[in-house]
């Protein structure tokens, strides 16, 4: 049965806070950072007004935020936090520990550039810095998706076969501060969808003492890491299943990728987060003119949904991969590397063109994306890519 929800106008960060309020976690430990501050700020209001029963731990740093989340989750609590940019970077050490201990912590990240120079605006450098930390990474295109992804994140993270932390990303200032129409779920529906969390182990089970985070040397460490790798690989079908169940409830279905006119497209742009909204407008416009263009949106970056991506791209002629972060010293961004190495073994594969765009909140416009499609056509004629291109930068 699909729910037709009440509609309100709300900013991205507030939507994240509202979703967390409806989840009503046992513990939230957080430290504010732009552009995600409002999540914690708004959540503090809910705590102060008794609208949630959460124990809120206003820690003294992001490092301690993640440390406290780890402690609380190890104690069997349902746990959430929120951060961005330098804050996520400061958590780096603890991100690995959270995922290695198989703790289902949910974290919202208003994706933002990394210093220096200091910049408070949106790009994906922070999330890409945490790329290898063993967290599930979901990216949200708009305010509705932030809200929807958070509920799904709890279901995925706490699934007995997954038990891994999940990061829900959205573009800092672009989505975090955009006011959009949001279709709400009722508290009861949220409760039913996420269910009660039943942890497998708890530090508070004093009659069955457990040791968490021991020393493991060369005779066992490797097996721990491989078990963790299997867990994140195996989460892919569960992410899909949860996305479908969420669709059955709301009418808004989610998959790990979103194909937009890719089936017969010669030219495809691959992107994540808010840029997909911009690219979709361009695809609509060019399709009206009869051009065979498409968009592939990557919603889940970790685990990387390779099979789905290959299936969506394999028949295209030229693919432009848009990375909103850079890897100095390399020849392209992380998304490009992921896709091209994943498709390397195919006998017939598209030509790939890498782009880096939008660093530090630099705008990406429909004109830019039209330019990308034009360039993809030129590349087809030339038969080879042009090397890394920066979109909208003064060189």
């Amino acid at each position: 049965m699909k729910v037709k929800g009440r509609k309100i106008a709300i900013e991205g960060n507030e939507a994240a806070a509202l979703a967390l309020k409806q989840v009503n976690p046992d513990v939230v430990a957080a430290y504010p950072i732009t552009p995600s501050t409002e999540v914690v700020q708004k959540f503090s209001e809910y705590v102060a007004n008794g609208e949630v029963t959460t124990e809120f731990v206003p820690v003294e740093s992001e490092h301690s935020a993640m440390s406290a989340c780890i402690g609380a989750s190890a104690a069997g609590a349902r746990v959430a936090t929120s951060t961005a940019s330098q804050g996520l970077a400061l958590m780096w050490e603890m991100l690995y520990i959270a995922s290695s201990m198989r703790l289902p912590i949910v974290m919202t990240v208003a994706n933002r550039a990394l210093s220096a120079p200091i910049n408070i605006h949106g790009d994906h450098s922070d999330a890409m810095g945490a790329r290898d930390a063993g967290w599930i990474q979901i990216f949200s295109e708009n305010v509705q998706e932030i809200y929807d992804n958070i509920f799904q994140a709890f279901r995925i993270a706490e699934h007995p076969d997954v038990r891994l932390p999940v990061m829900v990303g959205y573009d800092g200032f672009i989505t975090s501060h955009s006011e959009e129409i949001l279709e709400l779920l009722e508290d009861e529906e949220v409760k039913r969808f996420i269910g009660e969390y039943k942890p497998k182990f708890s530090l508070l089970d004093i009659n069955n003492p457990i040791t968490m985070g021991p020393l493991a040397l060369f005779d066992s460490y490797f097996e721990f890491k491989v078990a963790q790798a299997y867990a994140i690989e195996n989460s892919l079908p569960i992410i899909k299943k949860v996305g479908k169940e969420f669709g059955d409830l709301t009418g808004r279905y989610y998959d790990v990728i979103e194909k937009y006119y890719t089936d017969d497209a010669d030219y495809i742009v691959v992107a994540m987060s808010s840029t997909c909204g911009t690219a979709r407008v361009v695809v609509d416009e060019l399709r009206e003119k009869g051009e065979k263009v498409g968009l592939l949106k990557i919603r889940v970056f970790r685990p990387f949904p390779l099979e789905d991506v290959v299936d969506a791209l394999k028949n295209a002629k030229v693919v432009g991969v848009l990375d909103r972060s850079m890897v100095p010293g390399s020849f392209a961004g992380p998304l490009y590397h992921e896709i091209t190495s994943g498709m390397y073994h195919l006998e017939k594969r598209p030509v790939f063109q890498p782009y880096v765009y939008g660093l530090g909140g630099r705008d990406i416009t429909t004109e830019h994306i039209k330019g990308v499609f034009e360039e993809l056509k030129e590349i087809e004629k030339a038969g080879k890519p042009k090397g890394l291109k920066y979109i909208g930068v003064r060189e």
Partner: protein
Amino acid sequence: MAINLRELALKGEKLTSGHRLCAGCGASIIVRMVLNAAEQPVVVANATGCLEVATTIFPYTAWNVPWIHSAFENSAATISGVEAAYRAFKKKGKIQEDIRFISFSGDGGTYDIGLQALSGAIERGHRALFICYNNEAYMNTGIQRSGATPRGAFTTTSPAGSVIPGKPQKRKNLTEMMVANGAKYVAQASPSHWRDLMEKVRKALNTDGPSFINIYSTCPRGWRTPDNSAINMARLAVETGVWHLYEVEDGKYKINYKPAKGFKPVEEYLKVQGRFAHLLRPENAEILEEFKKDLQREWEHLLRMEEATNK
């Protein structure tokens, strides 16, 4: 409250034998005393360090209580989270037991890299006991200086060389920082004075708020002392005035050890440790003098605080 040895002897071991700490290490003795003193069930967080690595080599564990280690600098933040979860469950009626929370860190994990997390946890008022087992250097990584290393001591990053004879700086006064930070119960203890130590642990665990105990812990490897000297060395530290036993309850100071005939000469403590051997050579008389002055200043401060807070 009173400690009854017969009752203690009947309690089961919470840190079992078979762990791999060095012979003569102070840490295991301290942990056994602390856990034995607890009247309620406890959950322990442990910072990275000797204690953590030597007691939990997978697939073995020496801990007979729920235990978590996450990183070096954050046992205080980690236990904050555990305690917050406990409060959440308690509020929702999901947990009935009365549980206490203890964080163990070495001097590295408290005086230095862990200071921020510790300070934050105390400021927020988590009901937990934060214990520093203080052996005055980073022993786990091969005896490097820490903020707790006393002036003049040899460590591998403050070696006694021909130009610089050991650590040039005096030790940080972490205990006083914790008093200033607002911990409700603060104390210094030594395993040589076991009854005093265990009574302090009980007081701390029954304090409704954050508490901190700085416990002197010997390290035969780092101090260059015999394996069988742990308790004697700790006692000597107290009797020579190198380690003062005192407690601060809600801002009120009480010195627990005041020798009627004054402290023993500090040389008695220094001469039996390899890490101070060079201090007793005539060319280093000046540093030795500074070392003594550091202790004198700490002692006089305590006497003044005791007088001022008990008027």
